[in-house]
């Protein structure tokens, strides 16, 4: 299932790996731990430069699942451009009846979500396992 991604995509024994084609300091790896569940694991820094790439990947995945987990554990910086992508993805997920779950472990992700009040609006989990295993 080839999709239009801002990254080079590679399919590998059921695992979709999206690689960083430019020197963007962000990487997004997509995998499907269960039927209808997509996990997008983000590492690097999400700012004005890299947020559009994140947006491209998660928006493309919204049509492919009924649970979308965005794992931000490996994110060292989350700026307001990144927050805007999460808010927009959340709205779009609601529209398409997809459940959006965020993994927000470390301070560099938790702090921006808390300061902006987004922890009230978005569903967050401390770890990937918690997010994937949560009741639907």
């Amino acid at each position, binding site marked *: 299932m080839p999709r239009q991604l801002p990254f080079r995509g590679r399919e590998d024994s059921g695992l979709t790996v999206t690689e960083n084609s430019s020197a963007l*300091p962000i990487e997004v790896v997509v995998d499907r731990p269960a039927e209808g569940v997509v996990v997008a694991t983000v590492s690097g*820094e999400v*700012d*004005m*430069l890299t947020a559009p790439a994140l947006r491209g990947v998660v928006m493309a995945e919204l049509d492919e699942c009924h649970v979308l987990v965005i794992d931000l554990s490996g994110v060292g*910086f*989350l*700026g*307001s*451009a990144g927050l*805007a992508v999460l808010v927009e993805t959340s709205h779009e997920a609601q529209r398409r009846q997809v459940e959006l779950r965020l993994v927000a472990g470390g*301070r*560099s992700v938790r*702090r*921006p979500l*808390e*300061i*902006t*009040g987004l922890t009230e609006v978005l569903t967050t989990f401390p770890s990937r396992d918690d997010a994937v295993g949560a009741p639907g």
Partner: protein
Amino acid sequence: MEVRIAASPAHLSVVRAVAADLAMRADFTLDAISDLKMAVDEACSELISRSVPDGELVCRFAVESDQIHFSAESRTGSTQPPSRESFGWRVLTALTDAVNTWVVPGPDGAHVLRFDLLKKRADDVVGL
């Protein structure tokens, strides 16, 4: 100290790295370091998105007794500073102890947009 970069999103991370290094050495709390990085990134992102083409972004950091004073400016086409109703402005006010933005006349009839912000060593921010 002063950092001059091309007004391009590719350079945001280096300005954040400078902010983090200064705040760490000034013994800021971890939350205050995180907040300063985000505030600096927010101000610079606004400046970059409103900069004239091929503009330069000038950032100044001053480490004072219990706070860091950050100011940044770049040439812009508009006489209007960013709206104080925007999400970005609310983020900046939530993250910092003081913040201001305004447009001043620049050389050759151009306009210069400027941000000025203060962040104290210990965070006592209240959120949006």
